[in-house]
């Protein structure tokens, strides 16, 4: 019997990041999966070598798949391709927008958010600007 180290690595926990667009059930994973995670942690505590690299270590089914990655990245790339706007052009458009809007309202320059969004058939150019106050509010 070996001595247990004082500092234990945390027990294996499923990670559920990057699951946007998935159903709640998909995010939580199959019930059997949770049973498997619990059983795994009971059978092999985190410090056990089997826990480090084993083909049977539970892998969260709700993790973001290569397919989702591809779809997400491709959508972004195509949006820019289709709009024929480079990120440099979007940046300069952003700067010019700040100039124009600043004539009328005081805005937080850093908070101006400008991005492309894919809608059903068209691409939307979305600008999110938080206004500090009207320029003539004190006049």
């Amino acid at each position: 019997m070996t001595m247990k180290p004082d500092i234990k690595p945390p027990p294996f926990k499923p990670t559920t990041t990057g699951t946007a667009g998935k159903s709640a059930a998909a995010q939580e994973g199959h019930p059997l999966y949770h049973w498997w995670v619990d059983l795994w942690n009971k059978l092999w505590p985190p410090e056990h070598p089997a826990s480090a690299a084993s083909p049977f270590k539970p892998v969260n089914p709700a993790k973001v798949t290569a397919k989702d990655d591809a779809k997400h990245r491709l959508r972004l790339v195509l949006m820019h391709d289709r709009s024929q706007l480079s990120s440099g052009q979007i940046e300069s458009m952003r700067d010019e927008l700040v100039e124009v809007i600043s004539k009328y309202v005081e805005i937080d320059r850093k908070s101006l958010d400008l991005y492309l969004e894919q809608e059903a058939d068209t691409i939307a150019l979305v600008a999110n600007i938080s206004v500090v106050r009207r320029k003539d509010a004190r006049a």
Partner: protein
Amino acid sequence: MTTKSTPKDPKNKSQACRVIVVTSGKGGVGKTTSTANIGAGLARMGYKVALVDTDIGLRNLDILMGLENRIVYNVIDVVEDRCKLNQALVKDKRLPNLSLLPAAQTRDKSALDPAQMKDVIEQLKKECDFVLVDSPAGIEQGFQIAVAAATEAIVVATPEMSSVRDADRIIGLLETKDHIEHYKLVLNRVRPDMMRTNDMMDVDDVIEILSIKLLGLIPEDKDIIVSTNRGEPVVLWEGQKVPKATQAYRNIAGRIAGEDIPFMDFDVPETWMDKVKNLLRINAGVA
């Protein structure tokens, strides 16, 4: 492997000839393979088909058809009046109603312009039911030459990001061509195993992203390499156990001819091991 094909009686040329360009933007996704197989598939059904290679300087359609030793003249010779169109056409050794108009290998794409290509294809149209034009990769002069005379387009893509991106670009260009009446997608190198495990975009994903109609699915198949090596398009293979790609290309040819053929289901039945894996979602060998 037997490659004896049994063409039906060549139909009398009745309706107008259809000119279809096969294009993709990205190279290496299967344009030439698809041109050879769809063309041979249509010829196998009895239609009179001419294949035109527009990849001037990098011709390959002749290799895939196994006709590389029969080429005497090429499309540039026709345009520059060194021969008649019929002299340049290479008759297929298997199907009498299939012929190939080869590209020039020693010239480059500037040797031809879209108007000249259109003239040549107009001549071909008089004698054929289908003219299939194999486009080179890219979106420059070669592409412009290939689409010049076409009224329909087949966009070939694989379910990979780079290929889908380039296909999207090509679709954008096809949209600007008023003479292209419609275009459809052939999704090549489909991997049902990887699609099932979510390691690859599936067919619906690609169709949705490109918002395009599907013409057919071709599974990834090592027999395609064998068929290229032998110069026998896989669509012409005959026998009890032909590859899935053979049937897939026959289906596409049938759909082009107007038949209503359902899309193939490539899903292999789940083994008991698959079932266990799916239940526990074990990523064997990766974790």
